[in-house]
């Protein structure tokens, strides 16, 4: 038994973005996704516009709603699922999610440390500190 030359073909059997490797699901699936996404959008615009929520809880609500809506799009429009024959697609997606969170969280973390370690600039400070 020789090793297969191109391994991913065996695992990437279900094309990303298709329901079962062939079709694109049903009209019903798209309409359900449309309805849920619309409700989530309205909810997050409401959370931003209302004065009921404090700013920090509004930010938390908008973040949660955004992640929920992205998942709705991935499931109903891009047909990403956890079925075993989509394993390669899910692995590539998970790797991207890790890289994205490292870039965003890492940048914010490093820059906030830099910001708090920075000496406050005082215009009255004499220039003798310079070499």
């Amino acid at each position: 038994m020789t090793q297969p030359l191109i391994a991913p073909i065996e695992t990437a059997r279900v094309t990303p973005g298709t329901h079962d490797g062939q079709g694109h699901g049903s009209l019903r699936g798209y309409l359900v996704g449309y309805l849920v996404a619309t409700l989530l959008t309205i909810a997050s615009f409401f959370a931003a516009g209302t004065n009921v929520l404090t700013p920090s809880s509004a930010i938390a609500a908008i973040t949660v709603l955004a992640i929920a809506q992205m998942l709705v799009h991935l499931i109903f429009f891009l047909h990403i699922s956890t079925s075993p024959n989509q394993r390669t697609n899910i692995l590539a997606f998970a790797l991207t999610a890790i890289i994205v969170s490292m870039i965003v969280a890492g940048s914010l973390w490093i820059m906030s440390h830099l910001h708090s370690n920075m000496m406050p600039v005082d215009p009255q400070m004499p220039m003798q500190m310079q070499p």
Partner: protein
Amino acid sequence: MNQRVMDIRLAPASLGGNPERRGMTGFGFYLYLLSDCIVFATLFAAFAVLHRSVADGPSGAQLFDLRNAFVETACLLTSSVTCGMAMLASDRRHLRSALAVLAVTFLLGFAFLGLEMTEFARMVSEGAGPSRSAFLSAFFTLVSTHGLHVAAGLAWLVVIFVQLRQKGFSDGVVRRMFCFSLFWHVIDVVWIAVFSFVYLIGSAS
């Protein structure tokens, strides 16, 4: 297995309908889209770091018009659904309805781009252009990179529309439509992040 690998390698490009080949094209395009998400992640990170650096200029809460952002969101979300319907029509090989929903997709995408350009023009005329502050530089870079993707998608859509009328559902056209639908849905997912983290949180905080 090896026999199947050989089949793919020897298959001429015209055999686009070969599900294996379509699977490979789709997977390759999917990898491109994931790497595009990383590009957007760097721009989001820059925006998140710089969004308070307004240099005594206008902040997001003063500049953003949430009603405009809501209409933009509605246009792009609806166009994502009509794009999905075009794929359903392509599955059934129904040319007339595929062309109709692709045209609706184009018009909604065009409306989105028009609203965005109007907003940019208003902000620049108010003196809040990309050179005003670090916040606005990051804002214009992020949002116009997304807009550039929408514009590229619209150009692609015109090509697909013309090819669909001329060639019908040939294997190549079906494959291009399929890649376009992936692209368009991902652009919509990126827009969710833009309106939530840039517009809504910018106005709430």
